[in-house]
């Protein structure tokens, strides 16, 4: 008889920190205590706190263990499962600010208490490979309600009323998109789920598919009913093998129970879903390129209109929605639009999932109501910058977005407000940068990505972004002038106006945004030939502080190019700037902090 459920994250993050070996070890150890029938192991999706993974949750005790290793398994089984004494040293805790006491209750731990989970509600809670666990969580009730109690138009009206906006980056009202597709006359229509997720640092969609694939399938079927489609495609990159596998399992389980297929709920409605693998090109996340890719053509965009809702895949009316957008749909139909509109801000209803990364203590996956401030996400949930470093900026919107500074930290997050402040929501990547980040280098990083990912169809994007990258390289190498900055700005604006698709049109954003917010840093690079953050190698200067130098010669031995000279025990050592290759080996070797980098 089952007495304990042990939930272990089997998402990509925790799997790479060996969570599956922990499962194996548990399966070995449990029988030794005759607990194999009392303790059930459940492999789940992401718990969100990836930084502290692998995470293990024990119910009904509601105890969460973090950083669990294979070596901890014996102790956990013996002490906790057998004797009932939780292993305190592994427990996930927080410190109460007032009393300075440890908090064990998971609902009061700040990382979770500020969150509201709608799209992620089942992630880390159910076994994504078991359709019955999804059904236990009211899964497929919304589809049943839509098919048996609502007309297609009523479904669309409910989504319209909910105010749901696309989570893939654009924020377009989902209900309106569905209405266009419904109004298009055609013998065939299609529903596509965009699971390409190409933004560097983003893993929201992957986590949803790994943790709760049925939520997306159910929503796609609802969308099919609403617009009059019988076929759905999930377009997902092959680099997401765990998500692909779980999707396959989910589709076959749903078919087996008749939740996909013909005459679902006896309503006469038929719907099937197929998976289409992408090769992981950023541009294939753009909807027209994605459609081309599904049709077996090169993933290149075409100008819109016509919009996919009028002429999409195979020339038929098609709706394309993001994974997270879909993950909200069944919840809205099941709980009603009025429930959804209570959450969020005036223009942005519901929640948003962010992949929190960069220089932040709690990297991971968080879902917060729209209107939560950046400070709450970065400091209260994220725990701020590690190692007592100062916050410098937060990058949102990935390669299409921008950077926001300290000044914006108390601003509420929603679609319109982030644009007003000079960045954008994007798909949910949120990268925190501390004082050691060089903003020119950050702009260069994104441009480097864009140059790799540009499909090459239109000249502004193919050639223009390459030129932008060259200009940025010039600045980082100390060869830029004030004119370089002007050139950078005017070329950026040209590309924005002339590129064919969203990729090129938004590619200059990281440049323009960092130039606006951190102009002084660009000026320092071109006028003073200095990188204030100490990142751009060519602009760094290593010197030795003669007062601190103990004349030990350790640095000389480490220097690969013989740039350091001096006499042991007699004179302080010096670095020849012409020979120095700025590798930093001397600095790492000095025990007295005598080497200065500026």
């Amino acid at each position, binding site marked *: 008889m089952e007495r304990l459920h042990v939930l272990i994250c089997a998402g990509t993050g925790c799997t790479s920190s060996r969570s599956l070996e922990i499962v194996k070890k548990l399966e070995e150890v449990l029988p030794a205590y005759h607990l194999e029938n009392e303790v059930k192991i459940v492999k789940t999706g992401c718990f969100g706190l990836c930084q502290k993974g692998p995470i293990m949750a024990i119910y*009904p005790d509601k105890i969460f263990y973090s950083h669990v290793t294979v070596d901890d398994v014996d102790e956990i089984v013996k002490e906790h499962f057998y004797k009932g004494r939780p292993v305190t040293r592994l427990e996930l805790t927080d410190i109460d600010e007032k009393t300075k006491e440890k908090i064990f209750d998971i609902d009061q731990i700040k990382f979770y208490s500020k969150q509201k989970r709608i799209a992620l509600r089942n992630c880390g809670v159910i076994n994504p490979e078991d359709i019955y666990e999804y059904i236990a969580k009211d899964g497929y009730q919304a589809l049943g309600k839509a098919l048996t109690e609502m007309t297609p138009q009523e479904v669309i009206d409910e989504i319209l009323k909910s105010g749901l906006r696309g989570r893939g980056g654009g924020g377009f009202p989902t209900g309106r998109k569905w209405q266009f597709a419904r109004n298009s006359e055609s013998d065939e229509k299609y529903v596509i789920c965009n699971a390409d997720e190409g933004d560097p640092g983003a893993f929201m969609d992957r986590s949803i598919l790994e943790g709760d694939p049925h939520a997306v399938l159910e929503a796609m079927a609802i969308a099919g009913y609403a617009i009059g489609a019988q076929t759905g495609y999930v377009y997902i990159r092959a680099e997401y093998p765990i998500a692909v596998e779980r999707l396959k399992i989910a589709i076959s389980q749903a078919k087996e129970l008749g939740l996909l297929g013909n005459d679902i709920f006896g309503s006469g409605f038929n719907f099937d879903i197929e998976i289409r693998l992408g090769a992981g090109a950023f541009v294939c996340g753009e909807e027209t390129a994605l459609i081309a890719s599904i049709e077996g053509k090169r993933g290149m965009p075409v100008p819109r209109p016509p919009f996919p809702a009028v002429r999409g895949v195979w020339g038929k009316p098609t709706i394309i929605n993001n994974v997270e957008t879909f993950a909200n749909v069944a919840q809205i139909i099941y709980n009603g639009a009025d429930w959804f509109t209570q959450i969020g801000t005036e223009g942005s209803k519901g929640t948003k999932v962010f992949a929190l990364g960069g220089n932040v203590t709690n990297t991971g996956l968080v879902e917060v109501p729209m209107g939560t401030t950046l400070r709450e996400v970065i400091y209260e949930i994220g725990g701020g910058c590690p190692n007592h470093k100062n916050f410098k900026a937060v990058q949102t919107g990935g390669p299409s977005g921008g950077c926001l500074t300290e000044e914006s930290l108390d601003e509420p997050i929603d679609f319109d407000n982030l644009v007003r402040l000079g960045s954008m929501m994007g798909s949910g990547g949120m990268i925190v940068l501390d004082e050691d980040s060089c903003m020119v280098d950050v702009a260069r990083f994104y441009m480097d990505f864009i140059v790799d990912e540009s499909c090459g169809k239109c000249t502004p994007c193919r050639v223009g972004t390459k030129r932008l990258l060259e200009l940025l390289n010039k600045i980082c190498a100390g060869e830029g002038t004030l004119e370089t900055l002007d050139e950078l700005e005017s070329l950026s604006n040209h590309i924005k106006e002339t590129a064919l698709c969203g990729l090129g049109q938004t590619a200059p954003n990281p440049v323009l945004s960092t130039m606006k917010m951190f102009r002084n840093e660009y000026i320092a690079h071109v006028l003073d030939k200095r990188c204030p953050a100490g990142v751009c190698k060519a602009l760094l200067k290593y010197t030795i502080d003669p007062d601190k130098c103990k004349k030990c010669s350790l640095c000389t031995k480490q220097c690969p190019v013989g740039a350091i000279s001096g006499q042991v025990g007699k004179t302080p050592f010096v670095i020849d700037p012409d020979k120095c290759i700025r590798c930093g080996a001397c600095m790492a070797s000095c025990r007295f902090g005598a080497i200065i980098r500026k």
Partner: protein
Amino acid sequence: MKSLADLQKIREQAQKRVNMREVGNEDYRVVVGMGTCGIAAGARVVLNAFMEGVNHDHLNVIVTQTGCMGSCTLEPMVDIYDKEGRKTTYIKMDAEKVAQVVESHLKNGRTLEMYTVNQR
């Protein structure tokens, strides 16, 4: 899947399998002391008896365990918490007594005074 009623039936069955994770909605929470002395005194039998009783009658009750409860001479000890968090402590339990506690306390809401710590 032929109707919404079919799905609701499946849901009902499925919920029983994951109920354990829905902490907070239970009518009672049974906590069995499972320190070394508790186990030696037969706490595992007591734990299993509660599990069986609760499962047999599909009660909305969570059965869990804790370490040593501190009074080794009174083991096996069991705390039962109600929705308001009020605690009743039963002492020197065995399978026979558990069956009675399940029937009286968990099913009918009547404390079995004669087995509680107050009657010592």
